[in-house]
């Protein structure tokens, strides 16, 4: 990668306020990816720096603990480095990276499946509740645990859509499904999450 390209990548990595900036940032990212494909480690470090937080958070929401999230996020970047020579730019780099991370999480979960209790696709509807207060750390943990109990496709859809603010099309690309399926999974994920949270509250003293 040229010095100018790297400088662009460094300077505009987070500059997405205006369409021109977003286009330049995408161009800079393409330069970084090209440099990685030529074997330049420094360029890959920049991509890790740019996406490490998002990938770590994605993994954390799957496994609900720091140690596993750290391992899974590192695994995802390692797999990306191994495969970057085959990245053709059909999707954005971030979409490609998310897909690798989601697959790493799904494989991890498959290995631990006997230890986890996953819900059936649909739960019975509880009585409605209306409060939406700011969540404490304890409540946040409860929501994360409830998310962790959702069926795989619903959980993956909800995490990508709600916490990473991806479009339906991007989520469909990552999960290899259609926009209609993504919408359906998101709808059922929210419904099941609501029932799970209500059920948990009914059990609390």
């Amino acid at each position, binding site marked *: 990668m040229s010095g100018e390209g790297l400088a662009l990548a460094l300077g505009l990595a987070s500059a997405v306020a205006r369409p021109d900036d977003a286009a330049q940032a995408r161009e800079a990212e393409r330069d970084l990816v090209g440099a990685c494909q030529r074997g330049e480690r420094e360029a890959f470090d920049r991509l890790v720096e740019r996406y*490490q937080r998002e990938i770590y958070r994605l993994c954390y*929401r799957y496994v609900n603990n720091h140690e596993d999230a750290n391992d899974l996020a590192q695994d995802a970047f390692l797999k990306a480095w191994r495969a970057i*020579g085959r990245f053709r730019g059909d999707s954005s780099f971030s979409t490609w990276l998310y897909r690798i991370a989601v697959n790493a999480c799904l494989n991890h979960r498959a290995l631990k499946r006997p230890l986890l209790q996953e819900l059936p696709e649909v739960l019975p509807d509880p009585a*409605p509740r209306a409060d939406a207060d700011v969540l404490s*750390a304890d409540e946040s943990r409860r929501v994360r645990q409830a998310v962790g109990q959702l069926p795989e496709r619903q959980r993956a859809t909800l995490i990508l859509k709600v916490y990473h603010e991806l479009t339906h099309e991007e989520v469909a690309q990552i999960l290899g499904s259609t926009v209609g399926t993504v919408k359906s999974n998101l709808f059922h994920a*929210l419904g099941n999450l609501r029932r799970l949270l209500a059920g948990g509250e009914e059990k609390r003293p």
Partner: protein
Amino acid sequence: MTRHLTDEQLLDVLEDEAAIAGREHASGCAACAMRVAGLRDTLQRARRAEVPEPSPLYWQAFRRGVGRRIADEPRPVRPLGWLVPLLATAALVAVVVARPPRASVPLRPEPPPATSEAVVPAWSALPPAEQDGSLPVLEAFVVADGEAAAWEEGRGLGAFEAGLSDEESQALADGLRQSKGGAL
């Protein structure tokens, strides 16, 4: 719209992507409005559930960890697309060099065959003999006069014409007029 909204339409209302008819129905139908409110409440609660943020130093350690694991890896497979035109060119050169020269396409032009018929190469800028109106005139003149040697000796038309008698000049002029009229 009288029927209740479908799941997808409810989601569209929740995400402010619904068509006008869907929005109007959701605002007027208590059942659909309640379902949308339930989805919105859950979505808001889910969004507020934060992931614990590691310390700032963690991210440096994370990158070092990734770097260490990559250092133990072989280099990534590089795309070989740039090799394709190079190999194609090399193959073409090899074929051209290894190919024996064809008899019908000599590398060096051969001398013209020793025949009395004129051979016009395919690349000549001159028109073909059968389309050249001036050739019959000259041929008739030269053959009729029996003086082809004058051309072969390089004296040309001017020198040849200067040696003609009055009668011969008249005969040449008549011949040219006739030939011109025939060509036209």
